């Protein structure tokens, strides 16, 4: 059956709420409206306003109360309406959500899963196309997951809700309507594992979220050029699955990292740093990064020039093969 990535998340929330009455879903417009992308559609209808509810317009309030609810014993799944609107909650996320379990020596568990639609390529106005994952991945104490397929969206959401750690769950909004033939429920690999989506021998392409499909398209196009790309879907940005990353580069000797976020201190920086440290002798060429430029996110009409695409990936593949 054809399931979109958004539907997969909707189903995951539904199933999680069914199996565990402690799961709550809340945020701006998630209840009655079912979410601006309909990802929480019908949850209020099914589970009542007590368990799926609209909050006042206040992100710090949403996350701070989620922390209190988690301390009480609930499993909150709050939503931040868009990536660019998470920042008012930065204090609560970084100073408390990420640190309270550590601060309390494990006594306080905060099984909060923050859902955040992220990434660009949807022709939106400002603040609706950000890729803030590096802020979260740099914050010790947060798990950061991001599915690139409908199956993973379902499975990783179920896993995130079930775990006792705080999770930042980044949903690639441009892929919300991406379809997949699948039967839900489905269980894919454990969320902290990277998965080789396509095996290859010439260059390892590391990607996640919205860029998984782009990287797969690049691999198809690369085959026409006689290049065999290995596409690795990272899935977990914190912790990174370093063994899988390193093993891939040890096989291919070359690596290109792809992400929408600006290059400087984006995920590619950490991945490149780890690869060169742990697969030093295997590297035929430097790790290159096909990323957003070091500028603020562009206006909608210039998005296509700014976002990494198949051409930019192939360009770097070619550069890396030239070494």
């Amino acid at each position, binding site marked *: 059956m054809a399931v979109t990535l958004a539907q997969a998340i909707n189903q995951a929330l539904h199933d999680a709420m069914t199996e565990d009455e402690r799961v709550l879903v809340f945020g701006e417009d998630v209840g009655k409206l079912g979410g601006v992308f309909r990802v929480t559609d019908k949850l209020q209808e099914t589970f009542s306003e007590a368990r799926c509810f609209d909050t006042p317009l206040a992100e710090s309030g949403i996350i701070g109360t989620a922390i209190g609810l988690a301390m009480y014993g609930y499993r909150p799944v709050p939503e931040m309406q868009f990536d660019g609107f998470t920042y008012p909650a930065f204090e609560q996320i970084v100073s408390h959500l990420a640190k309270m379990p550590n601060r309390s020596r494990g006594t306080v568990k905060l099984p909060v899963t923050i859902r955040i639609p992220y990434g660009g390529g949807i022709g939106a106005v400002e603040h609706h196309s950000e890729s803030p994952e590096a802020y979260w991945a740099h914050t010790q104490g947060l798990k950061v997951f991001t599915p690139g397929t409908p199956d993973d969206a379902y499975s990783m959401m179920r896993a995130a809700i079930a775990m006792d750690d705080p999770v930042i769950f980044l949903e690639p909004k441009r892929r919300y309507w991406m379809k997949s033939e699948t039967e839900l429920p489905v269980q894919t690999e454990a969320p902290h594992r990277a998965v080789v989506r396509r095996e290859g021998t010439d260059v390892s392409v590391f990607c996640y979220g919205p860029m998984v499909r782009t990287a797969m398209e690049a691999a198809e196009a690369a085959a026409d050029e006689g290049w065999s790309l290995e596409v690795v879907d990272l899935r977990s940005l914190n912790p990174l699955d370093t063994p899988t990353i*390193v093993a891939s580069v*040890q096989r291919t000797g070359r690596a290109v990292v792809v992400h929408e976020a600006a290059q400087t201190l984006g995920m590619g920086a950490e991945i490149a740093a780890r690869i060169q440290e*742990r697969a030093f002798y295997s590297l035929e060429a430097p790790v290159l990064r096909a990323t957003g430029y070091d500028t603020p996110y562009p206006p909608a009409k210039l998005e296509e020039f700014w976002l990494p695409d198949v051409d930019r990936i192939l360009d770097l593949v070619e550069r890396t093969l030239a070494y």
Partner: protein
Amino acid sequence: DGQAQAAPVRPLAKPPVRKLAKDLGVDLADIAPGSGPEGVITREDVHAAASGGQGAQATAAATQTPASAPAPTAGV
């Protein structure tokens, strides 16, 4: 992760050695494994190959464990 791979392991060398090999027209695959720890190819290996000698052991096995990088001490 020291899992043995079924596929042949790539020649191991630090970047300056790779450059040296290119500059001298030496194919690292021909001289792998090198005389460095865990089969890493050294400058000496490359120079030896370039001058026609055999500075390293001939490849004996089709597969071998890739050199693992020293465990990091900084960071978890």
